[in-house]
């Protein structure tokens, strides 16, 4: 797995991060408010508004490497990709939830953010705990206990490693294009 990112390839059994715990049904509007979706383009600015209407403390205090832990149906609502990228740009290592809204889940992988569905560890984890994710072993550790989750395919892992679907494809196909990806509205 030579092309995994440093976080995974150099520490394959240890993405340790501090937990920010949230409940069920968190929608994309409170993850990243709609009023910013067409005006903000700078990653730092997008990151600054992450979870703004859910938990103001998060944007102020979250550290790179922290992990969001949440209940059912994380990311329901809009298909906006900034609901994923605001966390990625904030340096969040992963989102662990009981379940993800379908489009959010795909956007997460395709934008290169590690999303793990593991209801058992969500029950156990609290804000401030430190959990350790072993993506290769499909296991999360908390307080000495292991919580398995269904393994991601090598493809999904390598998409995350590449930083998203478009860079992943460029690498896979041996392309060097650096064109900006334009998603039109028509």
């Amino acid at each position: 797995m030579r092309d995994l990112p440093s976080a995974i390839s150099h520490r394959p059994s240890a993405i340790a991060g501090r937990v920010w715990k949230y409940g069920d049904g968190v929608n994309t509007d409170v993850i990243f408010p709609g009023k910013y979706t067409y005006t903000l383009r700078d990653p730092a600015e997008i990151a600054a508004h992450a979870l703004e209407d859910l938990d103001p403390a998060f944007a102020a205090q979250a550290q790179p490497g922290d992990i969001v832990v949440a209940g059912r149906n994380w990311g329901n609502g809009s298909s906006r990709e900034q609901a994923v990228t605001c966390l990625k740009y904030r340096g969040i290592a992963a989102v662990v939830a009981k379940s993800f809204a379908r489009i959010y889940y795909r956007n997460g992988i395709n934008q290169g953010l590690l999303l793990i569905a593991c209801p058992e560890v969500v029950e156990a984890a609290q804000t401030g705990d430190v959990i350790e994710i072993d993506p290769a072993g499909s296991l999360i550790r908390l307080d000495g206990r292991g919580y398995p989750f269904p393994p991601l395919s090598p493809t999904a892992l390598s998409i995350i490693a590449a930083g998203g679907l478009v860079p992943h494809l460029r690498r896979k196909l041996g392309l060097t294009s650096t064109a900006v990806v334009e998603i039109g509205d028509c």
Partner: protein
Amino acid sequence: MGHTFAEKALARAAGLPGAAAGQVVDARPDIVLSHDNTAAIARIFRSIGLERVVIPDRMAITLDHAVPAPNARHAQNHAEVRAFVREQGVRNFFEVGRGICHQVLSEEALVLPGQLILGADSHTTHFGWLGAFGAGVGRTEVAALWATGELWLRVPESMKIVVVGELGTGVTAKDLCLHVIGQLGADGGLYQSVEFAGPAIERLSLESRMVIPNMMAEFGAKNAYLPPDGAVFQYLSERRARKLPVSNSKSQISDHTSAISNLALYPDPDAAYAAVHTFDASTIELTVSCPHAVDATQPLSAVRGTRVHQAFIGTCTNGRLEDIAAAAEIVKGRKVAPGTRLLIVPASSEVYAEAIRCGYAQTLLEAGAVFGTPGCGPCMGNHMGVPAPGEVCLSSANRNFKGRMGQPEAEIYLASPAVVAASAVRGAIADPREIVGA
């Protein structure tokens, strides 16, 4: 432990001996669908650094969302789609007026039981009526499919919905869907393969079956499934035979039917379901979704008499021949109420031609209805029937979100085509059984 339909279909599409819910597989879809959004996807595709798609024969492209082009911007978009289709040699391209992607691909028999279709359209769940696995994906993902022919998919958990009993007089598959979504919520089937079964489903006409997986997009479903039977195989084999140069003799159709039926996948009796819900069809009433959510349902009796300015029959959900026939039966010898407009947009050119041949179009025109070009029509507010502020539109479509039809100050109610037609005659939400029984 046995397997669900979703586990079997995605294992097949990924070339694996088996797959389990939660597993992520690399699947190769049999068909990749896009529509007016093809030009935007082509821009993403080129940004990857590629020039040629690798799956031109597995692509299907329709122009349906804003047809004929309502303005210069849409015209330019259509021109870019046509140029891309020519450049890439995509043969399954369907021009303005042929119809809505899901209806056209069904009529063209491009998707078969047990196959996988992925589309840059949320109602790609539609193809569950054939016993196929249909799911909507993002535009970037369609660009990736054009580039590689495959895409990662998580095998969904499955929910089984058993419908027993018999639908009452005038109660349709649309009422069933609105009832299920109203009872279990708009996220009731979130990320799941929603697999239907039961005698009430088996008795439905093919056109009524198409409504169900289509509407399951509004239930949060990844895909939905109806077990395909002989009627489905016959539908597909006749349509495949029509495309052959030689005469489609009965024996050829029989051969096709047999080959198609061999592709069908069925869940095992001991498959693991995340949930099983049973509904008694005989207890389901005429049902209406109220503004601004599909799960904000009411029995028709609770909203009867609500003033209707525009009545719309069409879309991939309910724009087929039996829908237009039901409307014609109700308006025959009657007139659309003063102050109300009845707009009919057939789901395809084939539906339109049949509606003319059967006399339904004549009946509806004499009652004062207006026909639009086959396509999505005013469903998502592009054109051809945008309501005014303060108006109420009663629609046979699938979504009533605020602003969906282009006017956030309008209210959209959803119902079956028969309810829409009856309401057009009364000028207010009405029970069709009161009109045809009167």
